[in-house]
């Protein structure tokens, strides 16, 4: 065993891989009196003899392994996590309790609908509530995440246009858009036409008009956009698009800024998706699962994925016979467990709570913006919505970059903002505090940022070599990509 030198932090060092621990033949699985059998039933040629390398651990070992792994993570419940565009708000504990009720977690999706009316009611009502919040007419809950929502929405648009005779060929996407927008467009068989934001960070109707032709199926707009700015020309832009027979798709990832403030349905939007794992507080889980419901205006309702949940008096049924529907995008009902959490959140907050949510999201973002303005270069001087964007322009003079600032924040115990996105802003630091953070937390974060700005002047090396207090130091990403090692393999001897 190597000797820990002073300062070595074993307490947060990574455990070995599960494959490197354990002992042959060990198992935490105990099932007396039943061996199970395949004798004679399954031909040998269809069977395997072993699962080489598979772990062999005891129950405590497993638990300790993952507990120790968990302790290497930052997370909302431990740290302020102002990751722009990700809406890292509090994930209420009661949602977790509710989602684990056997009446939700132990349901089989192919149970006859008349036996799962509670679930049907929840789905139906959640659709209705999301429609009300967003100002749309019909909603599908099937998409598993925002990106799948985008794809679904674009497919709806395509099916609708195809129904009118021509699915068209292109989608207009702003330069500030999230990467999933162009990716989803491509996956839906469209070419992407980029439109640039102006020097005040938003899209102008005339710019759209320049590229809007009858070859364009839709414009995808994010509002507030990824710069945290409200696309105030959206109505005129929509008119431009509609005049040429195109549709307007709204990336609703930033709906957290809009509830009770402005409804997408009033903006000329025809289709949108909503990230329940952002605005509606379902946990991010280190990358998922989420859910990406899609809302549409009435005229597009028939194109939504099947099955549709329909109400017949006090009873709910599944409707599969929808000839115009784009079909299925996911098996069963989507990420039901996530839908349960989001529904719980919505009934917890009610209309007043949802409205307060967006208001406080704006207040927090504008407050932080004010506190950091001057010390850090603000990418746009317009008032921001739920997030604000700074850059490293000032610190660059000392050779300190956005990446360095981000890493140094880790030493202060804060998760950094989103960095280097959106791409239109060089060295972007995209800060989204969310509404669930207190003023004191915002102040502490601001102090840390100001302190780092001072360090950048006085001791830039300290910042450039950060982080200094994390379980591991900066990691060599180039090496990982150059010669990818993507799985453990037993040492060959």
């Amino acid at each position, binding site marked *: 065993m190597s000797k820990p030198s002073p300062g070595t932090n074993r307490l947060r060092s990574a455990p070995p891989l599960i494959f490197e621990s354990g002992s042959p033949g060990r198992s935490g699985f105990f099932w007396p009196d039943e061996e199970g059998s395949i004798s004679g039933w399954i031909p040998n040629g269809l069977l395997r003899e072993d699962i080489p390398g598979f772990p062999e651990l005891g129950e405590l070992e497993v638990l300790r392994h993952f507990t120790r792994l968990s302790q290497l993570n930052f997370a909302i419940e431990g740290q302020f996590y102002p990751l722009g565009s990700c809406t890292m708000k*509090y994930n209420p504990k009661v949602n977790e309790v509710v989602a684990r009720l056997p009446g939700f977690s132990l349901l089989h999706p192919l149970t006859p609908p008349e036996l799962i009316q509670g679930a049907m009611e929840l789905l139906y009502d959640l659709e209705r509530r999301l429609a009300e919040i967003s100002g749309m007419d019909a909603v599908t809950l099937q998409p598993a995440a925002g990106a799948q929502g985008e794809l679904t929405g674009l497919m709806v648009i395509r099916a609708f246009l195809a129904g009118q005779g021509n699915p068209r060929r292109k989608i207009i996407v702003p330069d500030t858009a999230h990467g999933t927008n162009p990716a989803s467009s491509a996956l839906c068989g469209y070419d992407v036409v980029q439109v640039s934001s102006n020097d005040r960070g938003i899209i102008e109707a005339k710019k759209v008009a320049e590229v809007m032709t009858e070859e364009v199926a839709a414009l995808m707009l994010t509002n507030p956009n990824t710069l945290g700015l409200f696309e105030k020309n959206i109505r005129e832009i929509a008119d431009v698009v509609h005049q040429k027979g195109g549709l307007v798709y709204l990336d609703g990832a930033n709906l957290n800024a809009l509830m009770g403030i402005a*409804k997408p349905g009033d903006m000329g939007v025809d289709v949108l998706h909503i990230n329940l794992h952002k605005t509606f507080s379902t946990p991010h889980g280190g990358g*998922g699962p989420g859910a990406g419901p899609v809302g549409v205006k009435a005229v597009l309702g028939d194109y939504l994925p099947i099955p549709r949940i329909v109400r017949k008096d006090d009873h709910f049924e599944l409707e599969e016979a929808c000839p115009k529907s784009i079909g299925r995008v996911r*098996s069963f009902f989507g990420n039901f467990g996530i839908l349960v959490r989001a529904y719980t959140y919505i009934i917890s907050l009610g209309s007043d709570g949802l409205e307060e949510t967006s208001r406080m999201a704006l207040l927090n973002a504008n407050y932080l913006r004010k506190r950091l303005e001057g010390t850090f270069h603000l990418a746009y001087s317009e008032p921001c919505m739920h997030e604000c964007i700074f850059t490293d322009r000032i610190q660059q003079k000392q050779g300190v970059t956005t990446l360095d600032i981000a890493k140094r924040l880790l030493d202060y115990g804060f998760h950094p903002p989103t960095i280097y996105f959106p791409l239109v802003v060089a060295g972007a630091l995209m800060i989204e505090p969310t509404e669930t953070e207190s003023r004191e937390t915002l102040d502490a974060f601001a102090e840390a940022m100001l302190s780092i700005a001072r360090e950048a002047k006085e001791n830039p090396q300290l910042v450039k070599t950060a982080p200094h207090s994390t379980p591991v130091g900066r990691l060599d990403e180039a090496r990982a990509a150059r010669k990818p090692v993507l799985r453990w393999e037993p040492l060959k001897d």
Partner: protein
Amino acid sequence: MRYTPHTPSDKEQMLRAIGLSRVEELFDHIPRTLTERSQISLPPGLSELEVKRTMGSLAAKNATAQDWHLFLGGGIYHHFIPSVVDAVISRSEFSTSYTPYQPEVSQGTLQAIYEFQTLMCQLTGMEVANAGLYDGASAAAEAVLMARRIQERRRRVLLSRSLHPQYRAVIATYLKNLGGIEVVEAPYSNSGATDAEFISAATDERAMCVVVGYPNFFGIIEDLAPLQAACARAGSLLVTVTTEPLSLALLRPPGDWGVDISVGEGQGLGIPMSLGGPGFGFFACRKKFVRSMPGRLVGETVDSDGRRGFVLTLSTREQHIRREKATSNICTNQNLCALAATAFMAALGKSGMRRLAKINAGRAHESRDRLVHEAGLAPVFSGPFFNEFVVKVEGWQQRQARFTAKKIAPGIPLARWYPELQDSLLICVTEMNQKEEVEQLVQTFSGN
């Protein structure tokens, strides 16, 4: 308010710092026409207690696997989940963190994904696996899309009719808009397996891939040898889709058969059924295809002091770097479910996984034998199966009510997707179906 910590004085001071006096001024710059109808018309918020009661009564209106005897599989399986699994995924450091973009404070998530990728490789016998996709159906669609990228010139996709009908539907949805792709449905034979002769004949130089279930939707374990041979001959890729991942602990793994892409649904590995989601799609393939893969990948590297660490890697495939040229549009995936599966597989371990799979196979076969011999049901297919099988139940429609009255859901009627399989039920028996339940099932089918 429930989750916003702002007191009136907090608000006032913050507004003052910004130079405003009312919260509404924060969105004064939005055109009035867009804000004037913004009020949300929903009931007011509830206390936590009322929330729990409301949700409790919705939950009470559902037939759960706890109160009912469910013999339902067909893509979602009721399996035993050790308590450690929920303990692991309930750790808020896992559940309330984002995608690990800052590796220095995300080694927990990153190492767990690396372990997950390895486990999925071991289980499928493949060389590489990603961090997971949405579900088995979209994973199957992504497999076809990847086959298309790899085999750009080819235009034919062969889908076995015994592949999960919803998966076929999703593949169709994904392919529909991509133009010029011919989807050919391969029939199944009397054994319930894909008609190998048909595949042999239809797999030619136009075929980009052949997609079959393993086990397939009827529970049948396909013999992949002839299909693999046909693909090899024609230069097509062979894709297997597994909806019941536990089966792979026992069955010859796709990698061993020479499969090119092995995908499937991971729910069976420690994730509650939850009306079919969230689970996760798994995606494994040959190493040479790695740069065409969809989804996230974690790789090993070292930190500034030479210590081992893990990072997201090969992201140039992904939408946030490559945008419209990305291999997929996926961003958020189903990470916490993949973590649950990792904990589940670690908790059961090699012998536990194999044992559990055997218990499933044993119980399912015993049950089928009893249903055939004691209740007189006719088996529909002759092929070998894992834990589900199809039987013919004459007059099913009329008999259904008897089962409902006894809180038994005896199987999934197949006629909805297979008009040729009237009165046929897909019955699944797992370790969760107790002996007495099977007894009741047999009794009820016997007319008692």
